[in-house]
């Protein structure tokens, strides 16, 4: 299948969903965003980021980039920003410059909370009417950007679900699409294998650089990465070391050349397989890949992680039949069948790829059915390292 049905967006992008999003610019507007979305078809985000005067510029920039990228993800037909004060309006302009249908409610200008609720509902109605007029059209499969993720990993992650997802990544890349491999802390120990696949020395150097940078920042905080990773559930699931976890995690990216390494929440300029520097934290990683423009994600899990996204469909692939059966409310596909001989890595990869195309065209995922819409703001993690932590060139 070379063509699928997606929503046409500005600048040649294509969306798998047609969401109207209510997005608070500060934590204290989260409750208002929720109240505005309540009783409508709109989706919304809640977060705990409250700007402080002593905020690092790098932190501010990372978070603005995340918010702007998230709000202009192609799955979003229109966005309503909610701000406390007029000074936060630049993100409205940024989203409009990106061609996004967007509006803003500033609480201090709307006459307080009640005024903002009234004004916000009116503006949300107008944005909803715009979205309702849009329909799916034929689009190339290569328009898709896939976010790959693993969470609640166990000893089978690297044997069944992750390599099967790698097969699906390869299929998408071969069809002209983009696959994103991320969670830098879970690539520690696999850097030499990934760097070897870089299309240039610069890409190979970037692979080493983001991994060494994360290791260095953990040391700079006087901590050991092994205190948080592998997590208690990973260990119970049979993983012994971060290196073992990483060798399995890296398999999600398949086997194609690595075209580019990008910073957190930055949209790749290359198609094909790319690496994004994100924390291993499942939610922060998902938000970063979504802010970069991924319209869909496939998430492998050994222990059974239920999380989703406010704006993109997330398919869950279990690494083992026990979890797939036990958590069937949450799991879309069972890669444990590979272990039982009922599927091969290739056939399972094809199944994941087809499920991804179906979900991109509107089939709801389990996480969507259950209303999962987790979101978390990722802070600039490298302050302890500066100036060595200069961004990628």
């Amino acid at each position, binding site marked *: 299948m070379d063509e699928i049905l997606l929503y046409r967006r500005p600048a040649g992008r294509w969306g798998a969903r047609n969401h109207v999003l209510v997005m608070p610019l*500060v*934590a*204290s*507007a*989260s*409750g*208002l965003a929720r*109240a505005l979305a309540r009783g409508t078809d709109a989706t919304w985000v809640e*977060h*705990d980021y*409250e700007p*402080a*005067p*002593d905020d690092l510029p790098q932190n501010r920039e990372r978070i603005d980039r995340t918010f702007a990228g998230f709000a202009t993800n192609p799955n979003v037909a229109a966005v309503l920003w909610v701000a*406390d*004060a007029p000074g936060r309006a630049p993100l409205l302009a940024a989203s409009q410059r990106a061609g996004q249908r967007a509006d803003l409610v500033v*609480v*201090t200008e709307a*006459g*307080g*909370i009640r005024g903002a609720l009234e004004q916000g509902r009116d503006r949300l109605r107008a944005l909803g009417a715009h979205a309702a007029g849009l329909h799916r059209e034929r689009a190339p499969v290569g328009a898709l950007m896939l976010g790959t993720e693993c*969470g*609640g990993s166990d000893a089978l992650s690297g044997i069944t679900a992750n390599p099967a997802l790698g097969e699906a990544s390869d299929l998408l890349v071969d069809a002209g699409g983009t696959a994103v491999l991320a969670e830098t*802390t879970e690539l520690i120990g696999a850097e030499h294998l990934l760097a070897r696949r870089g299309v240039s020395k610069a890409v190979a150097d970037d692979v080493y650089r983001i991994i060494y940078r994360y290791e260095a920042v953990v040391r700079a*905080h006087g*901590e050991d*990465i092994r*205190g*948080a*990773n592998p*997590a*208690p*559930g990973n260990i*119970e*699931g049979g993983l012994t070391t971060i290196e073992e976890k990483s060798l399995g995690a890296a398999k999600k990216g398949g086997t194609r050349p690595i075209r580019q390494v990008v910073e957190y929440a930055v949209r790749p300029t290359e198609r094909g397989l790319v690496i994004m520097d994100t*924390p*291993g*934290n*499942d*939610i922060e990683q998902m938000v970063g890949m979504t802010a970069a423009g991924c319209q869909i994600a496939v998430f492998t899990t050994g*222990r*059974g*992680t*239920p*999380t989703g996204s406010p704006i993109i469909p997330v398919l869950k692939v279990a690494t083992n039949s026990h979890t797939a059966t*036990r*958590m*069937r*409310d*949450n799991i879309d596909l069972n890669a444990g069948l590979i272990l039982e001989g009922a599927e091969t890595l290739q056939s399972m990869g094809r199944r994941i790829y087809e499920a991804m195309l179906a979900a991109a065209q509107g089939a709801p995922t389990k996480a969507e059915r*259950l*209303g*999962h*819409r*987790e*979101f*978390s703001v990722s*802070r*600039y*993690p490298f302050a302890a390292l500066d100036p060595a932590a200069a961004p990628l060139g």
Partner: protein
Amino acid sequence: MPDAVRPELRGRGRPGGTIGIRHHLLVIPSVLCAAQAAKVIAEGMAGAVAIEHQHGCSQLGGDAHLTEQILTGLGIHPNVAGTLVVSLGCETVQGLHLFHAIQGRGQRAEFVGIQQAGGTLAAIEAGREALARLRTATAADPDLPMPRRALRVGVEAAWLALPARQAAVFARVIDRLLADGAVVIQAVPAAETPPAPHGPPDAPPPPLLGRPVSWAAYAAPIPASGQGLFLMPAPRTRIAQKTGLAAAGAQVIVSPLVEGLPAGSPVAPVVHVGIAPYARPFAHDVEVMLEMEPAPGADAALLEALDAACRDETITEAIGMFEMAIHRIGPTM
């Protein structure tokens, strides 16, 4: 006015001897991955409140410890009649450990694990049953008089930097609360960024209001024997201050609104004091407005607003707005 002539306030007595001004059943996800299940569980039950936070996994030592301390503090809060911990199962802040910490401090508590129960829907069903058990167990908490000496009031830091005449209103109100025997927990800007989470600074606390003061560590529960005025070094952000004050056990929080938006807190009602000129657009969203030249009745109005928050819903509670932020020390892994 003295307790004798104020309209009597009433609260609910807890097994540990504290008195709550709310009768919440609190649903705590031990990790963000469990927040959706926690929310749906709480939606099915009157009086239940689910908190939503973005932590509990892939945190390094200090942050994981702080998250657990805050969630424990909220779980044993006097305004909380019973606590249900909803866990995923594989997270850094282990839900079962959190449950034992809350139960071990004398709180009525229940536990549901999503992976253990067999998925989100099964966990929701088990969680609703657990909440029903908690509601039954807590129904007999006695209705008691609530004198000021049973009250712990958390105060955000912003008033300390106000012009003298506005600040004086806060100073007099705090003085009055202390004279009536209440405990006041005053957030103060942390001397360092980020604040030390594990204990109070070594230096003696500065004098405030001419009264003796004690240090309190950020978000650490004030012991039952605690008396008088506590200073709590806290992060600058107002929501993280509220979370820290609530985790310390403040039944009600005073929030001077000098920036940002009014914001509630999941377990402790928040009395917003709109500070002119900034807060004038929020005149209808705050309990009390404090003009640049405070009116003669300003002290009484603030004290009455505190009493009213003990009796009735605050404005943010009525709108259903409560936010939650846990301070972060290091980066997330």
